[in-house]
């Protein structure tokens, strides 16, 4: 049975079993999925991202928490969690209160209102269409159990969010929806982990929304560090004079698809994305970015780097979209990759689409093997070939790690990279 057939055959049962609300809206959305099916390589947004793991379905949808505490505790302790952090844990899309700590300053709201989306606030156009046409977004909207909202209301301790997925007996398919808003003038850091606390495979279909309000200063550290299958639809909206640094580290994972859609909807916004991905084995890592400048005088920068080992495959598809009103936009994008082996591959497509005339934009991409000249230089000083490669790769990765201002996280990342390279 295919994944699609599995979902169609079980859809009504799932709605009933988990007592889902908004049934009519869910059914309407699901119908669209039923009609369109899963994306294939003919779809421009999925051209280089095969979802073979869904051809023969061996997942079972789970929408209640079944947290394996032993495994969870172990994985949590292997993660970097800053001191004095709020911790919000969700398992299979449901808030796990016992594994959470609220130090104050954060409001949590959980309801059934899953059709209330941040993208409703986006101006009409590509941004909205891109999300609304996303099949996994539709699946999420049909099957996410709850609308979870975290609201950071004052300069607070850092907040750690753990998105765990777990099933007791089977490979689990999890839909999870989380909305995070940071209020006006608030300065804060948010750490996000995806953990598989299952003994088996998990497929997480995540919808993550961020609302960065006026003059908020936010650092997000997203750490993908578990053997998941992960589809990660990230919608961001930034308001006037807000400043966002979004760091995304894809360290481990069989299949990761990040689609970051950021709508800069007012003036004076700063938005930076730093990304590092390190797939090995047969991993697939896909980063899609749509950075939309809707208003004047905003600055955005995307810097992503990848080290492709073994037979891994990487995809980068990043676009800077500058709308007519967005004069004086300053936008950059760069994607650099190293292929460690001849069997690894990378498909990179940076793009600019500009409708304003007074803008500064640039983009670039590079992919290649390690430089023979550099390797020869290092080995000529007595450093072995493997050690030389590792020195060069770590130096390459370090450029992104150096952007992390949280010193202890930087050390934690460097240790992880030591293991991975």
């Amino acid at each position, binding site marked *: 049975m295919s994944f699609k057939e599995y979902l169609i055959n079980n859809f009504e049962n799932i709605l009933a079993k988990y007592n889902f609300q908004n049934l009519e809206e869910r059914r309407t959305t699901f119908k669209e999925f039923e009609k369109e099916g899963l994306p294939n390589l003919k779809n421009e947004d999925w051209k280089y991202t095969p979802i073979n793991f869904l051809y023969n379905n061996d997942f079972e949808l789970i929408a209640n928490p079944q947290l394996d505490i032993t495994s969870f505790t172990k994985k949590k302790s292997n993660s970097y969690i800053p001191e004095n952090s709020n911790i919000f844990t969700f398992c299979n899309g449901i808030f796990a209160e016992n594994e959470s700590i609220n130090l104050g300053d954060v409001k949590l709201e959980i309801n059934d209102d899953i059709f209330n989306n941040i993208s409703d606030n986006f101006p009409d156009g590509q941004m909205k269409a891109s999300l609304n046409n996303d099949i996994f977004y539709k699946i999420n909207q049909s099957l996410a159990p709850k609308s979870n909202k975290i609201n950071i209301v004052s300069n607070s301790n850092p907040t750690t969010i753990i998105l765990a997925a777990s099933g007791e007996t089977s490979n689990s398919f999890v839909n999870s929806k989380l909305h995070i808003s940071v209020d006006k003038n608030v300065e804060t850091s948010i750490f996000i982990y995806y953990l598989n606390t299952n003994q088996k495979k998990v497929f997480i279909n995540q919808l993550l929304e961020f609302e960065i309000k006026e003059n908020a200063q936010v650092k997000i550290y997203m750490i993908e560090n578990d053997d998941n299958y992960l589809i990660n639809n990230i919608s961001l909206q930034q308001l006037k004079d807000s400043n966002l640094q979004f760091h995304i580290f894809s360290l481990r994972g069989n299949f990761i698809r990040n689609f970051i859609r950021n709508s800069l909807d007012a003036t004076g916004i700063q938005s930076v994305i730093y990304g590092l991905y390190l797939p090995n084995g047969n991993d697939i890592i896909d980063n899609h970015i749509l950075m939309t400048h809707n208003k004047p005088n905003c600055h955005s920068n995307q810097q992503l780097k990848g080290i492709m080992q073994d037979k891994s495959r990487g995809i980068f598809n990043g676009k800077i979209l500058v709308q007519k009103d967005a004069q004086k936009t300053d936008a950059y994008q760069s994607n650099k990759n190293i292929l460690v082996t001849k069997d690894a591959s990378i498909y990179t497509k940076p793009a600019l689409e500009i409708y304003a005339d007074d803008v500064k934009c640039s983009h670039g991409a590079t992919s290649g093997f390690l430089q*023979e*000249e*550099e390797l*020869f*230089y*290092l*080995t*000529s*000083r*007595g*450093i*072995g*070939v493997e*050690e*030389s490669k590792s*020195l*060069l790769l*770590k*130096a*390459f990765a*370090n*450029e992104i790690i150096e952007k992390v201002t949280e010193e202890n996280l930087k050390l934690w990342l460097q240790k992880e990279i030591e293991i991975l390279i």
Partner: protein
Amino acid sequence: MSLLKIQNLKANINGNKILHGINLEINPGEVHAIMGPNGSGKTTLASVLAGNKQYIVTDGTIEFDSKNLLEMETEIRSREGLFLAFQYPVEIPGVTNINFLRVALNEHRKYKGLEPYEPAEFLKLMREKAKIVEIDPKFFSRAVNEGFSGGEKKRNEIFQMAMLEPKLAILDETDSGLDIDALRIVADGVNALKNKNNSFLVITHYQRLLNYIVPDFVHILYKGKIVKSGTKELAMELEERGYDWIKDELS
């Protein structure tokens, strides 16, 4: 017994025959100079000695310290005591000088069965050696050769040599592009490291450097062959009469 013994060495790059049967023997404590016009094969010879795989050896033998050099990987040659100061030192973005040298020296020590350096001990050694080539310790934390001027890169090569203390150092046109002060620093560095057990192979286009590093023997490389060998007077003669003299003599 000789430290380096090259016999009938022939080598290609990209299918082009460059070296046509080189013979050269260097004893411990000796300084040899190789001079020759551009394109004569000086860098090719140096690269073959260091083990650059772009160059293919098609004939001949090389003994280094009584061992078969051609069977050794590049890093082993280094650990056995061979050092090449590159004509064009390579920039290594993101790898600091200190980290680079620490890894390199500790690999050398491991090869000799020694424990790695304590960090403090290592830093002390680096400071001492930096003095010899007048390198500011601020350079330690900068990426290897990145953004260095031509002269700084050459000095950094000599600094690495001082750290690694090779038995045989090959300096490939370390003098080219240096002003007179930088030249003196490089030469003083070499002279400070010279002793009766280690040897130098100084490749140069000009005689100038040989006023500071006095060679025991001078060889002229022309079209991939050593066409003349002599003492330091040969270098003087070459300086006076130019390379055309050799060309005329050979034709």
